[in-house]
């Protein structure tokens, strides 16, 4: 009797243990593959890069390291080229991200209407995203070519003299931004569209009954309704803008691609990293740039969070101090 009573109890407790294990441990097992890959390809390089950034290392002889402490970082802070690259990354980031997100919002709004062949337009808007950076940048570089490019030809019709897009600062930054805008607008538009379709229809009906115009519906119902997605795309494009590399590299071509123009007029932080590491062979300095980029991103994202929470506190009456 006793044994037969014990057996189910033992089985039960084992099952309970398995059940608990399933509840507590299984999630870890499921996410483990990601974190193993993350550890190998993200975390380890991150740590190793920070180690390299404290040494003087030549690309040709990666084994010989000389400990220099924070010298690479102080050199970076004193380097006018670094501040120039930082400013360029910022300006190119702004003139590519802001129009891109605004246009995406408009595009999504239009796609949200009942359109004939809406599927076609939706697919069409994502195709630039599916194009490789290399192909897109090459085509744009040809369009922006000085003597025989299509854009200068078009401007020439209106009597504008050939613009040397590559050699001048703002034209070059504008041209590079246009590549980014072209590639990412459709992608963001689809994200917005998906969010818009989740906004309840009765909100629009209620607004319409209250006499809100289309524009008012857009600003008062749609935009607040997709706020989370907007924040998400802002974060995503900020990260993308900070790491901008392929577009200016291909736009400049050859030595000018790496240095971001003869005068570094469109050198981004990504290009500076590459120039230091793979042209000047100073891996330590390059690693320091990489870390500066990383810290910059962290800083921006923290700032964004703070601003967002301040903004939401100010707009919601419960959280406000008034």
């Amino acid at each position, binding site marked *: 009797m006793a044994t037969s009573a014990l057996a189910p109890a033992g089985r039960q407790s084992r099952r309970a243990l398995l059940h608990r294990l399933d509840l507590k441990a299984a999630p870890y097992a499921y996410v483990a593959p990601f974190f193993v890959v993350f550890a190998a390809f993200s975390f380890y390089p991150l740590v*190793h890069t920070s180690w390299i950034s404290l040494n003087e290392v030549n690309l040709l002889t*990666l*084994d010989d390291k000389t400990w220099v402490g924070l010298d690479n970082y102080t050199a970076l802070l004193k380097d006018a080229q670094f501040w120039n690259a930082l400013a360029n990354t910022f300006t190119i980031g702004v003139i590519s991200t802001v129009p891109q997100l605004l246009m995406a919002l408009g595009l999504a709004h239009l796609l949200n209407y009942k359109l004939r062949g809406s599927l076609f337009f939706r697919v069409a808007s994502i195709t630039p995203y599916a194009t490789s950076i290399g192909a897109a940048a090459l085509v744009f570089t040809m369009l922006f*070519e*000085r003597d025989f490019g299509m854009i200068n030809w078009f401007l020439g019709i209106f009597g504008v003299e050939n613009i040397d897009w590559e050699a*001048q600062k703002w034209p070059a930054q504008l041209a590079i931004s246009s590549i980014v805008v072209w590639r990412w607008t459709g992608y963001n538009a689809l994200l917005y569209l998906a969010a818009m379709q989740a906004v309840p229809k009765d909100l629009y009906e209620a607004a319409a009954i209250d006499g809100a115009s289309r524009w008012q519906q857009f600003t008062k119902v749609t935009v607040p309704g997709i706020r989370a997605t907007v924040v998400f795309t802002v974060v995503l494009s900020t990260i993308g803008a900070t790491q901008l590399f392929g577009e200016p590299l291909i736009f400049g071509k050859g030595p000018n691609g790496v240095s971001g123009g003869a005068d570094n007029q469109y050198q981004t932080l990504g290009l500076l990293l590459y120039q230091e*590491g*793979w042209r*000047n*062979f100073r891996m330590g300095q390059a690693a320091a740039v990489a870390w500066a980029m990383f810290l910059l991103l962290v800083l921006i994202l923290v700032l964004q969070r703070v601003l967002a929470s301040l903004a939401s506190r100010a707009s919601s009456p419960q959280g406000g101090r008034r």
Partner: protein
Amino acid sequence: MPTARTRFRTRVAAATAAALSLALVAGCGGDSTGAASKDGKVTITMGLFGVMGLKETGLLEKYMKENPNVTIKADIAADEQTYYGALQTRLAAGSGLKDIQGIEVNRARELADTLAPRFVDLGEEEGTDHFLPWKAGQVTSKDGKVIGLGTDIGPMAVCYRKDMFEKAGLPTDREKVAELWKGDWKKYVEVGKDFKKNYEGGKKVAYMDSSTGLFNAQIYGNSEYFYGKDGELVYRDSPVVKEAWDTAVDAAQSGLTAELRQFQDGWDPGLSNSTFATTVCPAWMLAHISEKAGEANKGKWDVAEAPKGANWGGSFLGVMETSPVKEEAVKLVKWLTAPEQQEHVFAEIGNFPSSRTALESDTVKNAKSAYFSDAPIGEIFGKAAAEIPGDQVLGPKDGTIKDTFSQGLQLVESQGKSPAEAWRTTDERIRKAVG
């Protein structure tokens, strides 16, 4: 001898480097070294760049036909800078290297000084004494190891458009044209000023493509320019560099250039649409010009002797120590760089032989270029080759310094900076790059 441990560390370090470079290195995969299989079949892999003419003129095919047991796989990068970047990473990692690697002359010193042990010594090989003596010197390490055999050299001339010279009231005959600027590059610029003043052709045409070609032509005619005999940097006080800079700046500021960057976008359409009248052309550039300027401009181009003989570019083939088929690879390199093959490449696409024997052959001496108005290119470039100083001093960072000077000239040419400011910026950049 690297121990297993250090080799592992190198690999880890290189893997990190690769992860850092992201997309760049992503394109560098693929099969690397060849292998000898049991049935006597051998696969040899090659890493090449630009138009070295080995594959383009069918030499690799020919070798495979003559040696049925050999298969050659050649990977050709269009741009030497990209090629060298990838080679660097692979050398550092000690993996992914081909059996045979091409070496551009600007990189020769860097590789011979720092990485000679990675290359097979080709100095003792039989039948390799047919090269110009200075050619082998360029790839000899300090302890006398020869890390590569020469393919071509780059003696220089000036390519010019006869039809445009005529419209500017200048002589069109190649000997008379050469007479205009004989002995001094400054005269070449002066002719440009006349050209600009007197050109009557309607559409705007620049005298030359870019000031950087002119700068290169001048410095490469001397034995010392960026580096001194003992490997110290001398460009700052070098009268040669100063004079070349001043002349190039003069050309840029006088509006003689089309403000193009050689080998980049804009230069090719400039050739096909005839936007400039002259360009300083090393022998290997002829193939490029005839291809890009196209049939429509055939017979309008001609080649005249440059003011002074100079050498721009040229390449080598080296065999990697890690190759499992070293012997066969050395054999192939010797065959590819032998006089007969160099003559063949020259006849096909114009890359100028680095082999003395080939230079003296009739194929080379009597060669004419149909595209360039039947110019006797064998004679013109041969004469320029003879004027190249034999004791030219190369340095490890020649390529980087040259590129930095090119950008410095662009600051004047396209960005309106003052020459003094551009020089200062260039100097600062070189200090930083050389470390």
